[in-house]
């Protein structure tokens, strides 16, 4: 560009010309330019330009700025009023169209708002820690059988080594997850309460922001004998949170017990934390329990680190990769840092690479919310353009007396903005009304707070929706020719018809895709929940092995077995549904030393396999009589396959350096989440560490049998509550998050379909009304109602039919992508798609049919008389 230094900044000149009184503009501008030129000579360009800016702003004063009270401005305000009046009248006059628009837009907006709140909440999870920006969790990638498995569990000794040896790491500490131990009993006097707790490093409260009500972050866990309670736990144990420091309470886990001193009290863990717990104890205690199990091959902690400022994480990850392998040459483990707050949304790893997770649902719902909004906007566009003939006269008259196109565009935009505004107000009302139900559905505690973010979002939605919804009608209506408009010869152009039809097809395509997706998501989740697990999940009662029950375990099991209605009873260290510990300590002859394989390690008591109902396909189960069975193993089919044995019964393998004989093989069964395929595992008879008691009872008399078990339990543990669960309920709980997603998507899918149908309903009503004369003539000439219904609905059938054709392949493509995330998928059957298409057609027929039938029933004399 040519240097423009010799003329003043043009943008400022334009600005000046805009605000200045037109009578004054010429000579003042001249004065300014003259002064500017002179200043360039005297003071240089830079200063001249700066002073010019000052001059312009000093001219912003009454007497120079053009008058507000001129005709021009008044006119605009009057036009605004006039437009509002016209909009209001047209709303009143065409109530049905107005209501269809309003209901469609406001329910669409309410959905969008709900999804916005949900997404905000999801994204805010775990973000509340002050250290958030520098807070990372160490995850470990394991190379196994040619693939990489990623897990959160790390070695218990990793944190200390990291902090000592990696200068970029400011603090590293370990903790156990609370779910490892279930609810543990805490006793004070004769009061026992069970609560979830975990073992954490003594600096835990320095790294994580769980505010302390009593005690300081540095001191609460200073002693190994310290326990820190949550506010609500302290209240239920002591009825107060004050003056508790130093008081003692009794803790139990399995057959271990300790007396703790209260070191402090923390505020209850907020709902947006992924880690929930009610008390914490020193990790040193756990180290003592584990004893010499604290090695590089064992995974007994979660490890968290904070980094020093300005550390490049990618670079650090590269540096950390060989960290464990440098310690122990046989290791197959690569540690890696993941931002702590990514744990919730980005938890899925495939072959060592981040592969989404819950974020996919967040994205999915964001897309759905936009789609719903678009569908609602399309209704508005279609109905407004369809009703153009009614407005044609108005447009004609306005144009004839000199209205510019700009003014008309402005008028229709104003109408659409007004509509959107009313819809937003209504949507906020709807959200407030249904928020409790929404919270139930999503298991969240969301509230509608009008913070700046929300107001900004609402403003953006108002502008965007108002603009999209209003653009087409505004451009279309304002472009009408005034003469033809006044003559009433409103012939829809081909392009316009296509646009309207195209929009309807688009709406229905999306609706059908939603129907298909909702149907298949529902089927898949149903399938997962009812899948044959390889054992009978019904009528299994689970409860913790604790207190006196744990110390008298064998006798207790015998008592329970003898109860009427009890089929069998046993115990295990496994959670059965959540998975349990795994080990790479199983070796065998002929094993490829390069490939490490991890085996599920399930410690069980006698009769566990029988109680669970897992099928033994070769050899035998553990026997009550043979003491030597503690050096025997039972493997699953998958394990035999991995080892590559034929005829495995009686052969030897090595577990943790000890020779073990395989005495049996069980059919594969699911002992983990169904997101994963069945992995190799073994059963080991190990009465020393059993956390859960499992009882199979007879069907049909659950209540009485459970009462009987409880009375036996109370004989051993009179102070404990008998907390039991049914395995099938736990199992359903496992998939609660998927179920919620499924319910949510069903709701939103339903709303999208309803909104689409509303639009179709409006269009059908309009067509019927426009064709009322034609219908009258046809009827007068002897046409039957049926043929008229057919005539009217033909057009809509074609549109919806086309939508079905487009939607089915698209939905197939989308849904098969989603299903790939599951290890066990349903087969996609043709009828899912055809059914969805038929459902869409049926709904459309119903909607259109109601209208056309009404039109066909009208006495022709009525429609022909009115002119």
């Amino acid at each position: 560009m040519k240097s423009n230094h010799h003329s003043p900044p043009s943008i400022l000149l334009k600005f000046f010309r805009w605000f200045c009184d037109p009578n004054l503009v010429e000579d003042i501008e001249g004065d300014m330019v003259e002064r500017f030129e002179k200043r360039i000579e005297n003071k240089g360009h830079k200063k001249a330009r700066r002073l010019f800016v000052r001059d312009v702003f000093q001219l912003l004063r009454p007497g120079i700025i053009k008058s507000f009270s001129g005709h021009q401005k008044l006119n605009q305000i009057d036009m605004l009023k006039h437009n509002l009046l016209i909009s209001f009248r047209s709303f009143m006059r065409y109530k049905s169209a107005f209501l269809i628009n309003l209901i469609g837009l406001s329910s669409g907006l309410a959905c969008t708002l709900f999804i916005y709140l949900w997404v905000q909440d999801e994204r805010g999870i775990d973000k509340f820690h002050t250290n958030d920006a520098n807070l990372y969790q160490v995850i470990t990638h394991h190379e196994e059988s040619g693939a990489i498995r990623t897990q959160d569990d790390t070695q218990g000794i990793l944190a200390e080594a990291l902090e000592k040896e990696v200068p970029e790491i400011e603090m590293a500490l370990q903790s156990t997850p609370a779910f490892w131990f279930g609810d543990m009993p805490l006793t004070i006097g004769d009061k026992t309460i069970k609560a979830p707790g975990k073992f954490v490093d003594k600096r835990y409260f320095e790294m994580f922001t769980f505010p302390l009500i009593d005690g300081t972050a540095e001191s609460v866990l200073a002693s190994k004998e310290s326990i820190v309670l949550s506010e609500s736990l302290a209240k239920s144990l002591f009825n107060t949170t004050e003056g508790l420091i130093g008081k003692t309470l009794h803790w139990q886990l399995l057959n271990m017990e300790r007396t703790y001193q209260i070191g402090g009290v923390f505020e209850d863990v907020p709902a947006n934390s992924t880690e929930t717990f009610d008390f914490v104890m020193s990790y040193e205690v756990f180290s003592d329990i584990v004893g010499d199990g604290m090695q590089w091959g064992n995974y007994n902690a979660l490890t968290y680190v904070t980094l020093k400022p300005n550390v490049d994480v990618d670079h650090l990850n590269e540096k950390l990769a060989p960290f464990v392998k440098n310690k122990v040459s046989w290791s197959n483990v690569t540690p890696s840092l993941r931002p702590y707050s990514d744990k919730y949304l980005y938890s899925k790893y495939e072959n060592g690479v981040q592969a989404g997770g819950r974020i996919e649902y967040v994205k999915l719902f964001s897309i759905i919310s936009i789609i719903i909004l678009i569908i609602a906007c399309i209704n508005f566009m279609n109905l407004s353009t369809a009703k153009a003939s009614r407005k044609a006269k108005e447009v004609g008259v306005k144009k004839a007396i000199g209205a510019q196109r700009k003014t008309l565009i402005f008028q229709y935009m104003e109408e659409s903005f007004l509509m959107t505004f009313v819809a937003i107000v209504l949507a906020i009302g709807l959200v407030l009304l249904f928020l409790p139900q929404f919270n139930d559905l999503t298991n969240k505690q969301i509230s509608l707070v009008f913070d700046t973010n929300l107001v900004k979002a609402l403003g953006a939605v108002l502008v965007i929706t108002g603009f999209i919804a209003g653009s087409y009608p505004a451009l279309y209506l304002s472009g009408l020719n005034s003469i033809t408009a006044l003559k009433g010869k409103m012939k829809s152009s081909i392009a316009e018809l296509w646009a309207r039809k195209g929009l309807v097809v688009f709406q229905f395509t999306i609706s059908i895709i939603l129907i298909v997706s909702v149907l298949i998501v529902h089927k898949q989740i149903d399938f997962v929940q009812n899948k044959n697990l390889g054992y009978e999940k019904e009528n299994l009662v689970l409860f913790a092995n604790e207190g006196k029950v744990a110390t008298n375990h064998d006798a207790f099991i015998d008592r329970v077995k003898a109860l009427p209605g009890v089929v069998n009873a046993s115990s295990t260290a496994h959670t059965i549904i959540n998975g349990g510990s795994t080990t790479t300590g199983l070796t065998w002859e002929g094993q490829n030393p390069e490939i490490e394989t991890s085996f599920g390690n399930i410690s069980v008591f006698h009769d566990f396999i029988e109680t669970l109902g897992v099928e033994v396909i070769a050899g035998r189960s553990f026997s009550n009589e043979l003491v030597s069975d503690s050096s025997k193993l039972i493997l699953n089919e998958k394990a035999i396959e991995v080892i590559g044995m034929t005829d495995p019964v009686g052969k030897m393998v090595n577990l943790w350096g000890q020779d073990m004989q395989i005495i049996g093989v069980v059919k594969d069964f699911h002992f983990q989440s169904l997101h994963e395929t069945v992995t190799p595992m073994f059963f080991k008879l190990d009465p020393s560490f059993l956390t859960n008691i499992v009882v199979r009872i007879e069907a049909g008399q659950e209540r009485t049998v459970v009462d009987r078990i409880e009375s036996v339990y109370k004989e051993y543990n009179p102070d404990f509550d008998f907390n039991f669960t049914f395995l099938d309920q736990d199992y359903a709980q496992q998939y609660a998050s998927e179920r919620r997603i499924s319910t949510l998507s069903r709701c939103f899918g339903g709303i999208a379909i309803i909104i689409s149908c509303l639009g179709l309903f409006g269009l059908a009503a309009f067509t019927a009304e426009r064709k009322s004369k034609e219908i009258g003539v046809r009827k007068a000439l002897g046409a039957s109602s049926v043929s008229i219904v057919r005539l009217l609905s033909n057009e809509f059938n074609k549109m919806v039919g086309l939508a079905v054709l487009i939607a089915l392949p698209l939905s197939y493509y989308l849904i098969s992508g989603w299903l790939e995330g599951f290890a066990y998928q349903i087969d996609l059957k043709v009828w899912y798609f055809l059914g969805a298409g038929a459902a869409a057609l049926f709904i459309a027929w119903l909607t259109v049919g109601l209208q056309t039938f009404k039109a066909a029933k009208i006495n022709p004399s009525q429609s022909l008389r009115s002119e």
Partner: protein
Amino acid sequence: MGKYQLGEFEEIVMLTVAILHGEAYGIAIINEMESRLNRSVSIGSLQTVLRRLESKGYLDSKLGESTKVRGGKRKRFFSVTAQGKKAMSESKEQRMGLWNAIPSDFVLNDN
């Protein structure tokens, strides 16, 4: 009654327009004021006062010829009207009357 009292800045502007007699347009007035009175004047404040004085009838203005400088914009030349002259002399008389009323033993330049 109803007489318009010139303000201080207004009076200075009137005087400068009179000094420049026939050559009084925006920038010229500002330059004259800045050089004689050693005070900086913004275009904005000058223009407001000029228009106010014009609307009171003390000043008259007409546009000159367009020139190549100043972006081709014409100058607006201001001149003092008869009414303006009257206001100026009235103002001057008032001042003189006040000056004359100062007692003779009052020393202005006491060093």
